[in-house]
């Protein structure tokens, strides 16, 4: 029976962790990158399209974990969307393989303005351990302008959440 569990969940304490602190310096740097118009248009929520450009899938595991009840990203107005056409943010992982470069470019081109690009994970920063391979460009910045970098191998859900919340804060200023 599902009903007793649902009632218990309704009456019990929340299972969700408190929100992480957001580094102020990051917020200020991000706010500088947004003009007034973009701030009003984006409002206080972000639709995120995740694009894996060569990750080992460790980053995807942690990005997916953001949606579990412990992190519950939707309480902040953050949500994953199915298409880049619905997105405000491309959250990109991996060292950018040559085989994914065109797909990333196309996804970015059909993401409507104003938009952010977040590179998550050490590979996305500069190629990480795969630096120097014939098959990679060596970081997302090789193809597109990156607004925010979230390092880690893989970054923990808390680190990812800090970064995404900094984007939200920047919009509010």
């Amino acid at each position: 029976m599902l009903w007793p569990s649902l009632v218990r969940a309704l009456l019990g304490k929340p299972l969700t962790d408190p929100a992480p602190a957001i580094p102020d310096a990051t917020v200020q740097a991000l706010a500088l990158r947004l003009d007034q118009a973009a701030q009003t248009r984006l409002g206080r929520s972000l639709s995120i399209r995740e694009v894996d450009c060569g990750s080992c899938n460790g980053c995807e595991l942690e990005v997916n974990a953001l949606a579990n009840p412990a992190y519950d990203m939707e309480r902040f107005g953050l949500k994953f969307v199915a298409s880049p056409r619905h997105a405000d943010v491309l959250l990109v992982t991996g060292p950018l393989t040559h085989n994914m470069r065109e797909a990333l470019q196309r996804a970015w081109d059909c993401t409507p303005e104003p938009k952010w690009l977040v590179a998550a994970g050490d590979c996305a920063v500069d190629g990480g351990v795969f630096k120097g391979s014939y098959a990679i460009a060596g970081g997302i910045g090789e193809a597109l302008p990156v607004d925010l970098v979230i390092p880690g191998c893989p970054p923990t859900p808390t680190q990812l959440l800090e970064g995404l919340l900094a984007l939200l804060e920047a919009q509010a200023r």
Partner: protein
Amino acid sequence: MSGADAIRSGRPQGCRPHQRYLLEPGQWRALVVALRDDRALELLSLWAEPGFVHAAFHQPNEGVLLASLAVPERSYPALSPVRAGAVRFERMVRDLWGHQAEGAVDLRPWLDHGRWGLAAPMSPRPPAVITPPPQPEFLPVEGEGVHSIPVGPIHAGVIEPGHFRFHVQGETVVRLEARLGYLHKGTLGLMLGKSPRLAARFAARLSGDSTVAHSWAFASAAENAVGLAVPARAVLLRAVAAELERLHNHLNDIGFVCNDASFAWLHARCGLLREGVLRAAAQGFGHRLMMDLVVPGGVARDLAPGGAEAIRAALATVVAELPGLVKVYDGHASLQDRVVATGHLMPELAARFAVGGHVGRASGRGFDSRKLPGYAPYNTMAFTVPVLEAGDVDARVRIRIAEVQQSAALVESLLARLLPGEVKLDFPQAGGEGVGLVEAFRGDALHWVQLDDGGLIRAVFMRDQSWLQWPLLEAAIEGNIVADFPLCNKSFNCSYSGVDL
């Protein structure tokens, strides 16, 4: 002549613990003929190095055998006409090393999308390529009202990239063809010339969800090559980490299968249980996914103080809650309707592809490398491998449920056996050749490594189980409706990165 006898007619090359035999061209052709009649000998993997192709086989109740052929002309008689599982390996070998499989079933490129600027990057002198990338070719489909649905490489969910070409008639899938390779990072090439210690970072990142299992398989191959015995405590800690990995992935998959049938509550509960396991892993081993924990020579970090208690507590929560979740899974017709009889994989196909893990075990193939050939510490532990015959999404979920419970019990007894001691030895600078076979949550991971006299990697291959599972997903989806593809796909949960190398 049996296939195994055909292999053993070659010259032994000193690979440990499973022997590798170098065959003459006539002996390789005899092997291909023998494989046609001898259905028992299973193909586990096929790979290459400059000048050679190698194949790994499994003879039930006997063990693993490796066969090699020198390919001075860069061509070899194909195995794909007699072993369907060889098709994608042959395409990969051609793309990476440039060795052609004569008489192969499928000659289209696989990993090479024409975007590297060079061809056969693992060959000694890769030629430059300046032509624009070609359009991919898909297998033709004929029939009234058939149309195709191209999906990917970027998918709607937060998953890895790959292209799926569905050919459908009405709502029914008549053929699915996957085109992968988008994640090719050149991992094998980066490992060459490095010491096993340095190269372990790449094994740990072949497929992040199986980072412990692949690290262990690689470490075990390297240790077998030089004859290094790992301290007892390190062996137990490796197994603790491997079982935690199996557990958190299975919980994730059970939740996601339910989510794909829009049953969000089970997804939420499984996600929460899994999060507890990951946090315990972080407390015990310093990393949520336990990346770079298993290294050649032992484990990089000992279990942190309080780690064992944290792991026990997380597992106790899982064990206490799971029966209730299974009851909900069983008791909802809306959910059962989606998973029962969906994505049926015939046991004959599972056997023909020698598929392992939950995919094999849900379709009657009970192979588990922890049992046979078996390795420490599992060879001294009592556990039974769950096997079902139904072969549908439901059976694959039930295998996972059984394995979650079993892994929790295994971790409990592993922790109870832990005695103080060393966890890491220096890795000797010595040459040799070894194989490592470790049971990941998807099934057996097979690693092979050859070290030169200075102890540096001369040749290496890492085979994720997904190589054998991907083609079977295409078979399982046939005759289902497009809307059931996410369920089928998640019930397999093949790795993209693991096969894209």
